[in-house]
């Protein structure tokens, strides 16, 4: 710890040894709506290898010797901009980049020689980044543009299956991904049991997925970080956009609060499947509620030259129900208040206060017979981050955060007298972390990013702390009051990544990271459901630890038209959690007794070939991987495949811009089936045939593959208004992919048993109308 701060102090003060240096800093924005350009770059034409990249708020800082320079500003999708400066003192610039006029032309992907080989030259492992515009035409289920589903078309990211919005990154569990929306964690990223994700693409500016080489500023989950940033809203003029589809519709409104200084954006979505059902003759169907809605809102305002404040929030809810008989609803709510402050032209600070809540409840019956079960998890988070642009070869980031968690695992209340009211012990947790990281350029070829994070978690009580014996029965229970520390866990998380530029078109990268995870979502069923509980680390549950090494080779050719990336990784997971056989997970205060612990291993090879320019664009991804687990209490201690052990995973995405008005797209995915447990025999008990199981996950589901097609018709554009119609077909060749396989007795012949496969989606066409008032 002491050495840490000494080194930091040393690096900060060496600056004074250099004379006559000034700093040019500022913000790079989109000229049409004032949005910050995260990742835009600035290069000094006269000097080789001197440049900087804008941070998430569009801020950049370059320190140069006194003199005259030409700065070249670039960002993908925008025209380059050159600015000549005489650097005699520190300078602050506001740069606005323009979208080239030929954006609607045949070359669908915006042509702008803008750091196209960014994937080669950037430090850190390749981050999978998406901008909603990139994936506008990719067809997805029901024609709803969905960033999460498109992410699953990239290597290393596997969907958890149809009807499921959870995802697996490099063999890790679906609770091992940190999903952030404007810095707030989202605990359940899906609507309607997985058919849609909670991210409304119209409100999203940028999405970055870190599969390896995770920077030290992120922590809390063992496998990956998905950082989603909301748009700030047009600060130049009013804009509206939206779409009407068969299942849901959406509307986004944005406008300046004060032109060029502040703006807001509100984006909402609602599905209305149940409105059609109201016309049904059957009263039960008429009373069915089946919908979701969500709202994203953000406002920002620039106070003076050095300060900017933001307020953003998300609120979404899903409701399923039948009249008074049954109701199930759940949702996330998040809110972030943020203050950006320029401490100096070299030091940027971000302070955020973040709130996040996820809860579900279900109700059965009403009045005297009604009762309900509910559960929630709530976080309050204070976060402070600093970026110090020490010099052109070193950028330091450091900071810390503290999260106060409130866990309400379950309560049963209601008027029904048959049931006693049950309120499971509430728990509280304090999770905190500090980090320090440096991004360093050595010479013109080597980029290093190295850092250390220290994180800790204290489980605080109320109720009882339990100890269990080998069979999961309670062996002791100790009363704890609110505020007592039941258990503390903590540790260091080293992070390292390096990239070496071989030539302008080739680079190799290497990374190592350790991630600690203190919150766990233990799931007992095939599909991730809102009722999967989040459990904190405790005196029984240890934090999950993920250690990953990864290496990659990247090659661009034909002037960056083709990009090839290959990566290999090996991940070791410790303190993995599963349920023991026959576990009782419903409203169980002693749930920790139902857990068993083990280890996991995942390794693989990923290949992606992208074509980024021309009439035809798209990519092919291939992943070859294994994901294995070992638990003393499962499968007699033998190593078994994790459910997500899909050996081959292929995605082929093709987009073809026919002409100014038509764009065609298709995606084909193929993966070898999930590991599953099938019977190896049968026996009879009380006249029923019972399947007999031997190994866990010793079998495979059938291979999954499907083709989706989409056609977007860009209709006649007017000066202030553009619109398009999107037609798509999901599962175009109507393959019956297996959602589940059940083994049962043949209803027509009780002496026979059979395997019955359920398919969720066959061929589904849909139409969506989209518009944009600009």
């Amino acid at each position, binding site marked *: 710890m002491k050495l840490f701060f000494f080194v930091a102090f040393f690096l900060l003060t060496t600056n004074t040894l250099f004379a006559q240096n000034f700093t040019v800093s500022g913000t790079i924005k989109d000229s049409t709506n004032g949005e910050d350009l995260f990742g835009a770059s600035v290069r000094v034409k006269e000097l080789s290898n001197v440049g900087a990249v804008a941070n998430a708020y569009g801020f950049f800082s370059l320190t140069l010797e006194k003199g005259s320079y030409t700065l070249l500003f670039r960002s993908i999708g925008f025209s380059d901009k050159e600015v000549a400066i005489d650097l005699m003192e520190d300078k602050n610039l506001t740069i606005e980049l323009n979208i080239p006029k030929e954006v609607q032309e045949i070359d669908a992907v915006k042509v702008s020689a803008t750091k196209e080989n960014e994937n080669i030259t950037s430090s850190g492992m390749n981050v999978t980044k998406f901008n909603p515009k990139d994936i506008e035409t990719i067809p997805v289920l029901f024609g709803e543009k969905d960033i999460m589903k498109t992410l699953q078309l990239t290597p290393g990211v596997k969907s958890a299956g149809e009807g499921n919005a959870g995802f697996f990154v490099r063999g890790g569990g679906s609770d091992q991904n940190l999903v952030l929306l404007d810095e707030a964690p989202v605990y359940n990223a899906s609507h309607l049991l997985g058919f849609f994700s909670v991210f409304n693409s119209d409100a999203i500016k940028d999405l970055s997925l870190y599969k390896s080489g995770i920077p030290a500023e992120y922590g809390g989950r063992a496998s990956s970080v998905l950082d989603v940033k909301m748009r700030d809203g047009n600060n130049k003029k009013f804009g509206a956009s939206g779409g009407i589809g068969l299942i849901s519709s959406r509307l986004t409104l944005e406008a300046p609060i004060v032109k060029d200084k502040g703006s807001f954006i509100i984006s909402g979505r609602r599905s209305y499947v149940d409105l059609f059902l109201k016309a049904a003759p059957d009263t039960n169907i008429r009373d069915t509620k089946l919908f979701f809605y969500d709202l994203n809102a953000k406002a920002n305002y620039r106070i003076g030259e050095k300060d900017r404040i933001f307020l953003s929030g998300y609120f979404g809810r899903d409701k399923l129900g039948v009249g008074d008989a049954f109701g199930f609803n759940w949702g996330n709510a998040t809110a972030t208040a943020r203050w950006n402050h320029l401490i100096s032209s070299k030091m940027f600070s971000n302070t955020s206060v973040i709130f996040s809540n996820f809860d579900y409840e279900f109700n059965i019956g009403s009045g005297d017979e009604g009762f309900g079960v509910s559960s929630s998890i709530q976080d309050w988070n204070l976060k402070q981050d600093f970026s110090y642009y020490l010099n052109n070869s070193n950028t330091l980031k450091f900071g810390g955060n503290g999260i106060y968690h409130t866990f309400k695992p379950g309560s049963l209340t209601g008027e029904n*007298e048959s049931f006693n009211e049950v309120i499971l012990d509430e728990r509280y947790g304090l999770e905190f972390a500090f980090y320090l990281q440096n991004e360093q350029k050595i010479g013109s070829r080597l980029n290093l990013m190295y850092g250390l994070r220290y994180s800790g978690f204290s489980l605080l009580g109320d109720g009882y702390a339990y100890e269990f014996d080998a069979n999961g029965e309670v062996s002791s229970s100790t009363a704890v009051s609110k505020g007592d520390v039941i258990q503390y866990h903590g540790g260091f998380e080293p992070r390292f990544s390096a990239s070496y530029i071989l030539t302008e078109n080739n680079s190799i990268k290497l990374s190592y990271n350790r991630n600690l995870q203190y919150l766990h979502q233990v799931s007992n069923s095939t599909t991730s459901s809102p009722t999967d509980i989040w459990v904190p680390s405790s005196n029984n549950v240890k934090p999950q630890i993920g250690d990953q090494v990864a290496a990659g080779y990247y090659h661009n050719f034909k002037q960056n038209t083709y990009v090839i990336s290959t990566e290999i990784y090996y991940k070791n997971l410790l303190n993995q959690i599963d349920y023991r056989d026959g576990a009782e997970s419903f409203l169980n205060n002693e749930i920790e007794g139902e857990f068993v612990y083990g280890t996991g291993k995942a390794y693989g090879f990923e290949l992606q070939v992208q074509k980024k320019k021309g009439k035809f664009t798209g990519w092919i991804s291939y992943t070859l991987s294994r994901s294995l687990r070992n638990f003393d209490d499962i499968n007699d201690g033998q190593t078994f495949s994790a459910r997500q052990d899909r050996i081959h995973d292929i995605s082929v995405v093709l987009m073809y811009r026919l002409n100014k008005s038509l764009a065609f797209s298709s995606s084909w995915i193929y993966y070898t089936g999930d590991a599953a447990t099938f019977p190896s025999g049968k*026996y009879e008990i009380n006249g029923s045939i019972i399947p007999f199981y031997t190994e866990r996950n010793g079998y495979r589901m059938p291979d999954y593959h499907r083709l989706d097609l989409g056609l977007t018709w860009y209709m006649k554009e007017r000066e202030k208004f553009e619109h398009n119609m999107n037609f798509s077909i999901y599962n175009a060749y109507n393959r019956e992919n297996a959602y589940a396989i059940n083994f049962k007795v043949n209803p027509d012949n009780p002496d026979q048993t059979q395997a019955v496969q359920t398919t969720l989606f066959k061929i589904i066409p849909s139409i969506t109308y989209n518009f944009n008032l600009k």
Partner: protein
Amino acid sequence: MKALILLTLIIIGFTSCEKVIDVDLNEANPVIAIEGSFSAEDSTVRVKISLTANYFGTNQPASVSDATVTIIDQNGITSSVPLIGDGYYELQNYIPSFNTVYTLNVVHNGQSYSAQCKLFSAVPLNPLSYEYFPSFFGSDPGYAVFLNFDDPIGIENYYQIVLTKNDTTLNTIPDYYTQDDQLTDGNTVSRPLFTLFDIADTIDLEFRSIDKKVYDYINEIQATIGGNSSAPANPTSNWSNKALGYFNAYSSSKGSIIIQ
């Protein structure tokens, strides 16, 4: 209007379907399955022993008629349970001793299997009642019988409910109901059982007090038959040495009602 609803249902994924498929399964070596019960009601010990068979095979699971079966009471007194038929063993007039533990032993092919179960005293039933339930989402309407009883407070109670319709006992695994008192300890419980009957049916209800291990077993085996778990496993049996099946020592209260 109908077309619109059909379109909606199709759109939201009711395009799902089921079909029978071929699956290649490994066939494990046969394992012994023992169903044992001791009913305090008629003082009879009944044991049925069989072996596992290939899953898709047409042969019925083979019975085991060469095992030695004995039952031991809390005082260590052993009684033999003789073979009476193909794989069936029975001992009559075995007087129960309530709130004591019984051990059932089976020896076969040089292997020993043993299960223990506590015999609890019966909890009385209150008079049964019934109510008409109209059609729900296309299901047939009918009368459901209510289980009425007072749960003893302060004791962990586990129950199994077996219904008999017009002298035919609904005695297969999916027909059983289970009840615990985790949420209802000490309460007067009135719970509808959703096996629907018609007018003029005579319903007999057997209310069994059972051991927690048997309660867990019945729930797990019902889930296994339902086939809806992603990580299915063999139900946790109270037999040792990896035998399948269970040993249920129980006492009963009975009630009757006629739907009119």
